[in-house]
């Protein structure tokens, strides 16, 4: 029994094998008849789809298809079908529309004739909102190389963060007959959520005035305005034989210069001006004077008001009473050089001195050009920029010389500095 069973089993097994083989052979023989269109199609390789925008429902998207044909047959028809899946039954992506598509450009194709959009299609390709048919009449054989073709004015799918697929079929005929399929392939793309980033850049103005021992255009005055301090400087005891120019380290001088540092993001720039604060007394209230004293109008050297240079810069003569201010240089020591290069010596800075307060008339630190001082109490501009300024510091240098007749006493001047940025 065991042998019989085994014999029957072997017989059944052999029969099943024969039947399966026959079915396979029949199936293989019929397959070309059943699926004649894809029997000879090969896979397009190195294929991709580049879309100009991933914004949902964008109506002017450009779709660029790039692929390498697998066959050297001529290609005269193209079918591009948009689906929600790569294989199987094709459902058009919601919102996608080829209805307004136009031919954009092509490259890499053999044959001089460009493809053109076929608004209706034929046979295997019926143009619709989700199918592009394009054809040409050009029997030039293709090479197995990369090529591209672009279609414009396409409306993207409307559902964000979803993928969609374009099934590509090439035909050797320009009427898309089923038997003329050359290659096929599928590419994918996606519509993404538009990410909106909101930010606000606030108006910035950091302006400060103080005193500093820095006496050049390179040494850092401070990290920024928070490090600038002091509200005064002393240019020491005057002598008609000399001109005291800050910083003065002898005879009572405190070794300080003045400094005005500016930072602003005002795109239209900013101005820096000063106003001589009017002190008590009579005449010449805004110059270096003995507070409360009576002075004479005009240029007098025997009253307790040291004559001011005025708004026009001039050099001083020792013993000829005078008082003024200039800007020794634009100090870039606090500029981080991260936003723009700041270097006074090479002229690379944004805060430009007014000619009457330009110490050296160039990009050399100093006071050789002289000084100016407006004692009237109206604002006089000393520097300006036409763009943003990042911690550039004006080194303010004050100078005075008395006449031999200048009355003795303590003299002082006060200045009110303002920066006016224009946003």
């Amino acid at each position, binding site marked *: 029994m065991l042998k019989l069973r085994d014999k029957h089993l072997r017989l059944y097994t052999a029969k099943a094998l024969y039947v399966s083989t026959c079915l396979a052979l029949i199936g293989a023989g019929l397959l070309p008849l059943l699926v004649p269109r894809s029997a000879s199609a090969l896979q397009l390789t190195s294929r991709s789809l580049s879309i100009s925008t991933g914004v949902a429902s964008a109506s002017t998207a450009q779709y660029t298809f790039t692929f390498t044909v697998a066959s050297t047959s001529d290609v005269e028809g193209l079918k591009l079908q948009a689906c929600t899946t790569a294989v199987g039954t094709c459902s058009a992506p919601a919102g996608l529309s080829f209805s307004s598509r136009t031919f954009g450009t092509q490259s890499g194709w053999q044959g001089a004739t460009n493809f053109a959009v076929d608004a209706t299609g034929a046979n295997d390709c019926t143009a619709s909102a989700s199918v592009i048919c394009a054809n040409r009449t050009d029997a030039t054989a293709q090479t197995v190389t990369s090529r591209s073709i672009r279609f414009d004015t396409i409306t993207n799918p409307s559902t964000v963060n979803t993928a969609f697929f374009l099934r590509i079929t090439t035909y050797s005929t320009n009427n898309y007959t089923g038997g003329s399929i050359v290659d096929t392939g599928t590419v994918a793309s996606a519509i993404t959520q538009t990410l909106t980033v909101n930010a606000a850049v606030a108006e910035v103005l950091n302006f400060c005035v103080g005193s500093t021992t820095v006496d050049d255009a390179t040494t850092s005055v401070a990290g920024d305005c928070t490090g600038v301090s002091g509200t*005064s400087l*002393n*240019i020491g005891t005057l002598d008609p034989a000399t001109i005291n120019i800050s910083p003065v380290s002898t005879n009572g001088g405190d070794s300080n210069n003045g400094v005005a540092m500016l930072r602003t993001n005002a795109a239209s720039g900013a101005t820096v001006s000063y106003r001589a604060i009017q002190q008590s007394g009579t005449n010449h209230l805004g110059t*270096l004077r003995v507070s409360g004293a009576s002075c004479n109008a005009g240029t007098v050297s025997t009253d307790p008001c040291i004559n001011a240079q005025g708004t026009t810069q001039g050099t001083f003569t020792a013993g000829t009473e005078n008082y003024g201010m200039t800007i020794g240089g634009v100090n870039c020591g606090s500029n981080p050089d991260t936003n723009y290069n700041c270097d006074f010596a090479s002229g690379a800075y944004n805060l430009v001195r007014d000619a009457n307060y330009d110490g050296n008339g160039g990009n050399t630190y100093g006071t050789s050009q002289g000084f100016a001082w407006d004692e009237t109490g109206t604002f006089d501009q000393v520097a300006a920029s036409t763009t943003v300024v990042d911690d550039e510091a004006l080194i303010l240098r004050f100078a005075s010389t008395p006449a031999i*007749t200048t*009355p003795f006493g303590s003299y002082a001047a006060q200045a009110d500095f*303002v920066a006016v940025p224009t946003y």
Partner: protein
Amino acid sequence: MPSSRFSGAKGLSQKPGFLVSMKHHPGFLGLITVCLWLALGHQVYAAQLTNRQVQISTATPSAVAAHAFSLTYPTTNSVGSVVFLYCINSPLFSDPCTAPAGINVATASLSSQSGNVGFSIDNGNTTANRLVLTRPSSPGLTVASSYNFNTITNPSAGGTSIFVRISTHISTDGTGSITDNGAVAFATIAPFDISTFVPPFLRLCVAITVAPDCSSGSGDSINLGNLTPSAASAGASQLAAATNSNSGYAVYALGTTMTSGNNIIPALSSPTPSLPGNSQFGINLRANNLPPVGQDPFGAGSATPTPNYNIANFFMFQPGDMIASDSQPTDYNRMTVSYLVNVSAAQPPGVYNTTFTYLAVAQF
């Protein structure tokens, strides 16, 4: 935001029955339209006021100042009010506003305006840090405009940046949605003091020759040669002096007449001409021609020789005499001191000499 506007409209259009029913209620349709318009109005983004700045008349903390605003309206939207909101923490309209300590715009007056005009201060809606301009609402002009305010009290803290948020509104009281906006900034800074000291000056220099301003001098002795009864002998030295003393200065000549041991040449006790053959010693501070010696005072100062020494060709010398002076601050004067010596035939021989010391005195 605009898309939501349109989706809202679409939502209405998708209800034809609703629309049909509204056709029979035009008033209700109008109400809906107004509501929709108001809703859409809130969704319009504010445009930026451009070329905006504020110029303050003084940066001094707590000072009563003028604040002059300049700006350009970017749109022709209707404007019924402009708000100037002073904040110390941020220029951003999305941030809460912290009023700067000490600021007071409630006392402001509108001194002038240009461009978009017709505004006055809305005192009812103006506070210490919020200044409201009002006018009947009318379309804006896209032109540069300025609003200049006086009597604003600056914030009390120095060294700080103050932001002024400027916004325009359709409403006339600064309320409601913002039409256009922008911020400006200014900084309060304590006055900067420059000080110096002018000391009392009394400058005196003496030498055979000195510069008019005492910047140089040379020589400290005069040799009159051999004295003879037949001719006068003379020499000269110079001094210069200046002071900033309110009461001026005085120069004194200290010394003696010329002597040789116990022998002396008598000094002239009063201004006297030169008389060769007579023993005489004297000085003056003028240009002389008998004998030809000396120069008149020189310089920008106002000092003069004292009268007894201020007569040309007349000499005298009284030890300790004040020979020059001024009663007020004076620039430099250079004085030339002429020394006259005559001897008689009976003058004992010998080497005669003297030493003069000049003393300047000023009172401060």
